[in-house]
Every structure is written in C-alpha cells, then in structure tokens.
C-alpha cells in the first residue's frame, strides 16, 4: 500500500533523507522512529506531496505521489506534527470544507462532519472558531479532518502530542480499529510505548538513513546480536540500534 524507493532529500550540502526504501502492507501499522532531526518529518512531507524529493519515489495505493498526486492524495489522510488550522473557521465548517476538497458532496460532508465531531468529543465546541480551541482539541479536530474522507492510507506525524490520557487511549483504540478495517497507517512518533503497542513493523531512521527495519521481534533479535538483553523493551532496542556501529538494515 505504501512503497518508498531510494528516497533522498538534500538541502545544499545537508542530506536530510538518504536512500530510504521501505514498504508497508495494507491494514498494518508502521511505526517510524528516530531522534529529533533524524529525517522523519521530511520523509513524511515528501510522502504527502508537501515537499519535492531530490530523488526516489513514493507510491501510495499504487499511485506515484509525483506523477499522479491527485490520485495518491485522494486516498490518503494526513495529520502533521503541528496541525495549524484556519483560525476563523469553526470546527464544523473546517471539516465540511476539507470534505469538499476530497470530493464529498454537501449532504455527505455535513453528515460526516457531524459524526466525526461527536466521535472525537468535539460536538460541544463545533460552532466555535478554531482559534478559541485548546491545543488538544485542535489536535483532535485535525485528526478528524484527516479521516473525513475515509482514507485508505493514514500518515500521522506525532499524533499523541497534546492529547490528554483519555484522548491518547481513544486514539490508540481508533488506530487499531482502522488497521483492522484495512487502513494502512504510517505512524511517526517519539512515544516508543505507543509504537510498541500498535506497530506491526517498525523502521528506525538516523541522520536521514534507515538503520533498522522489521518487526519488533526482528529488531530485538538484532539488538541481541549487538549485545542487547533478551526480551528488551522497544526503548532499549531503539537505544541499542542507534548507539551501535553502522550495519546492514535487516528487512
């Protein structure tokens, strides 16, 4: 469902993403981990068509994001790390507007907006301008906007930031449900516990290069080979891999 091949992004002499290749199967959650500045957000911005890659391809649902951007975007939902919204629109108006961009008719858009607002606990503030909403509420609204057109691919950049414990739990349950319904989820997060709980496969990026890729078990096995403990948590595996000398990427 998601295929990234030899993706590269440079800014002058700085290499932000270097020869990144990976695949994500339909209906699975892919955890994308890395230190700050490792290249996670740059990768995601190239995947969503917000940034032009220097080289390489991104294919979403069989559509190349550069050659057929509209087709690729039509089946993708995206939540950025800082989801800025239109301050002067209400939550309801925002969802309806986003729905219309994705081809939802007026009646369908209205129904879907109302349903998502209730689902995300925003019904009470549906008529408020988004500038008056709290950070957590905006995060939930942006997530609702990402889901308004029932996407088959969901790309999430730090979705847990700003959510209260209840909201974070609801989101984890929702992501699990969406994956069970066949939605492919690309999840970039600093929360290793969330990645460990939800991800079918995990990729770790460091200084723009993919340094580890596989299931949690495969990564644990690799960490053991490098001298890590048996049954280590993802946190320990993550630190082991990032602190290990450069090696081959297991797939």
């Amino acid at each position, binding site marked *: 469902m998601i295929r990234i091949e030899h993706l590269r992004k440079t800014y002058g002499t700085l290499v932000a993403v270097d020869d990144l290749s990976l695949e994500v199967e339909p209906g699975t959650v892919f955890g994308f981990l890395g230190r700050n500045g490792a290249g996670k957000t740059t990768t995601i911005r190239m995947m969503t068509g*917000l940034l*032009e890659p220097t080289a390489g391809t991104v294919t979403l649902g069989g559509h190349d994001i550069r050659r057929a951007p*509209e087709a690729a975007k039509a089946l993708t939902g*995206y939540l950025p790390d800082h989801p*800025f919204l239109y301050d002067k629109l209400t939550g309801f108006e925002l969802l309806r507007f*986003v729905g219309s961009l994705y081809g939802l008719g007026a009646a369908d858009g209205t129904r879907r907006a109302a349903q998502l*607002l209730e689902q995300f606990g925003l019904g009470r503030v549906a008529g408020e301008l988004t500038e*008056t909403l709290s950070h957590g509420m905006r995060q939930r609204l942006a997530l609702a906007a990402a889901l308004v057109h029932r996407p088959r691919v969901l790309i999430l950049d730090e979705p847990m930031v700003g959510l209260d414990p209840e909201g974070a739990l609801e989101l984890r349950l929702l992501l699990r449900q969406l994956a069970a319904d066949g939605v492919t989820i690309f999840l970039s997060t600093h929360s290793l516990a969330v990645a460990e709980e939800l991800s079918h496969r995990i990729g770790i990026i460091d200084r723009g290069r993919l340094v580890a890729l596989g299931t949690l078990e495969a990564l644990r096995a690799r960490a053991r080979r490098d001298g890590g403990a048996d049954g280590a948590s993802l946190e320990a595996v993550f630190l082991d891999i990032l602190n290990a000398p450069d090696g081959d990427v297991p797939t």
Partner: protein
Amino acid sequence: MVIALVQPRLLALRNVVRRGPFRAATVGLLVAAFWTATFALFTYVLDYFHHLGDFGPFLTQRLLTLLFLTFFGVLLVSNTVTALTSYYLAEEVVPLLAAPVSHRRLHHARFVETLTASSWMVLLVGLPALLAYGVVYRAGALFYAAAVGVLGTFLVIPAALGVLVTTGLVLLFPARRTREALLIGVGLTMAALVLGVRLLRPEQLAHPAGLVGFAGFLAGFGATGSPWLPTTWAVEVLIPLLGARPGEPLFYLAMLVSTAAMLFLASAAVVERVFLTAWSRAQSGRVRGDARERPLTGWLARLVRPLPRVPGSLLAKDVTVFLRDASQWSQLLLVFALVGIYLYNFSALPLDDGTPLAQAMRDLATILNLGLGAFVTTAVAVRFVFPMVSLEGRAWWILRTAPVPLAGLWWSKFWIGYLPLVVFAELLVATTNTLLGVPAPVTLLFLLTLVPLMAAVVSLGLAFGAAYPRFDTQNAAQIATGFGAILYMLACLGLIALVVALEAWPVARLLRQARSGAVVASDLAEAVAAGGGAAALAFAVARRRALRALARLEA
C-alpha cells in the same frame, strides 16, 4: 535583563540583514529616497515661511504643532493596537511568563517592542522634517541634540498611554474583540487621515500662490496648542532653539521628560499589578454553545452551489475568513477613501475653460487615465490579492495534501481576486472617463484593455505573494507592507507604464478621429492588441512563476 529580553528581536533582525542583503539594500534605498523627498518638501515649505518676515516664525510653529499633533494621534492608535498584540496575544509571551522574569521586566521588554514597532513610521517622517527645520534656520548643534531628545521622549508618552488603554480594554472585553474594534478604528483613522491630507490640497504647494493658501490654512489652524499637551511642549522646546523666537526650552523639556517618565512608570506599575489577570482574560474566547452552523455559512453555501465543487468551497472559505477577520475587511475603509480622492481629483480638474491648453490637458488626462485607474486598482490588489497566499498561512498543508491540482488552486484564487477587481477597475475608469468627457471609442478601448491588464495584475499578485509569503502574521495590512508587496507594486507600475506607452499613440489617434466623427475600427483593435498582448504575456509568465513558487512553498 531587559536587553536580554529584547535580544531575540535584535538577533532576528541581524540575521534577516545577513541572509538577505539584497532585500536589506533595497529597503535601505527606498527609505533613503523617502527621507530625501520628505527633507526636500519640508525644506521648500520652510524656506518659503522663513522669508515671510515676522509672520514666518508663527507659521513655522504652526506647522510644527500640526506635525506633532498628527504624530501624536497616529502614535496613540498605533501603540494601542501594537500593545494588544505584543503584551496579550503574542506567542513569545508564553515562555517569558514561564521564565523567572518579573512582570515589571516583562513590561519593559514588551514596551520597547511596542514603541519600536509603532514609531518607525513617525521617525521616517519626523527625522527628515526636523532636519529640514535645522537646515533652513541654520540651527546650532544644540537644536539637533534637542530634536533627537524631544522625539525620543515624545514617543514614550503615546506608547505608555497605549499600553494603559490596551490593558484597560483587555480587562473589560475579550482580547480578540478588542483587537477587531481597534483594527476598525485604525482603518477609520487612516481613511480620515488620507482624506484630510487630500482636502488640504497639497498640490497647491507646488507654486507660490498655493503656498500662500497653505500659509493661510496654517494661520487659521487652531491656537498654538493647549499648554497641557505634550505636542505643545515639544514645539516649545524646539522653536526657541531654532532662533525663531525666545522661549523657555528647558522648562518644556523638563515637562516632556517628567511626563514621559511618569507615564512609563505608571504603565509599568499597572501592568505589573494586573498582567496575569489581563493575560488570562485575553486567552479566553467567546463561547457560542453547540450551534454547528452560523448563518453566514448557510448563506455562502447556497451562494456558491452553482460553482464547481473546489472553487466554490474555496470561495466560501475565503469569504468567511475575510468577513470574520477585521484586519482584512477594515482595509476596505482605506480603499473607499482612495476611490473618493480619485474621483474628487477628476471632478476638480480645471479642464472646462475651452482653451487649446485645456483641450491638450484633457487629452493627456485621458491617456493617463487608463494607467491611473489601473494603478489605483493595483493599490487595492496589494491589499487583497498579494496577501492571499500568505493568509492561507500555516494551514497551507490542508490544501496542499488535498487531491486538488496546484493549477486548480491557482485558478480558484485567481477568480476570487480577478472578478471583483476587474469590475472595480472598469467602473472606476468608466466613471472618470465620463467626468473627463472622453469619447466612447476611447472608453471602449480602455475597458477592453483592462480585461487582460487586470488579469495580469492579479496573476502578478499571486506570483509575488507566493514568492514572498509571510506566515508569521495573520494581519493582512502587515502582509501588504512587506518587501514582496513593494516589489509587486513596482512590477505592476512597470507593466501599466508599458501598456499606457503602447496605447498612447493609438489613443491620441482615436481622439482625433472621434473629434472628426470617423473612428477607424481597425485602429481600435490594434490598440487593444498592443496593450492587451503585453498584459497577456505578463499574465502567462506570472502564472508560471506562481505555480513554481506554490510548489516550493513550505508553510
């Protein structure tokens, strides 16, 4: 400590200059040109007053009083608006509040920022004006030192008053409502100021008879000023130091300094005491309950129903945001003032005395009217079209990740800007041509030329708006005063001049034909093709550049 708090701004400015030397040099050149022009104008007027004998010093003082009174009014409004943002709405306040920084120091840092942001325009006019006073009256070094001191102290007074007024307003009303009310106030003040300056008929200053009229106006302008006003104290410091007449400059300087110090300390004391309460109130918005749809949304949805889906949605969204954002629609007040002045100018042209000179003047005004009408419309486009991309702001990701082609987004923005502007330009030129008594074929030529010309102006607006976006502010007025806006204005000016030059000769020929009653249709078509062709080319080039800039745009 206060210096440490304002340091981020200074470092940011240094970085902007270092990373964009071309931009800094261009702005520097423009400022130098403005300073020189202001200095020249004031020198010309003051030199005339200086040679009026005993009446001269009186007029000199009146002009200085008028200048300081205008500064004071502008500064009071500007500081009140800026203080609201820098004290109660700026995101930078959050880390300062969390840091071990006392509210008094926070006040001092924000005060410096408010004063600087509000006063630069006054310095732009004030410094060359005072320099002109010094040069004309051959003042000594003491005058220049006092002028800098007076201006510096004078600026503190409206800044402190602005902070006090804003703090009071925030305690009484929600901050966003206060901001909207203040923005409307600014719009009205600016419109009144522009109309006021026009009604003074500044063009009369160009000849001695006009200067006599202006001197008459100044002579009749109020008293020398209330002794309670800081504007009077500032004048009373400077005039004696010019040697225009005796006075007590030290006493008035002491008045100015002590008042500025007292007001600064008062604003610090008030802010220190109530800042947290005011800040907390500023963070809360008005709760409207769970009504999902506001009346405006329903109306707009019905209005855009006949349009294709994406352009319709974008139009409804843009109109909603426009009407809810006072910083955008309050600009209309200025536009109305501008149009009023433009129409007044044409109605006041002395072209009806039937002499050959009047006829030649009328022909010249006719030829220039296409350019002037297009330029006035460009001034409107700078306010409304250029900021379009910036106003998408950091929510640009919503549009960019949607399955809408970039070209589609561009066309939507284009039509939203183009349709009202082309109607505006056509009405403006048709009305002024009627006032000038221009023959119908020439008016038709202008109206046909405006169709591609306005398309090019809007296309250029989107191109420059995408190439020089400002995502750091949501204030449309601020976006329209940036570096990119200046370049956009210059590009439009160049294009309009080219189109007018291309059509000048054909228009002159058409005017002659119209007078003899035999207009050649092919001449009309050739003229439209020449001007319209240039505009169409500019439209296409700008569109391509805009699409490239939009593709690179990172919010």
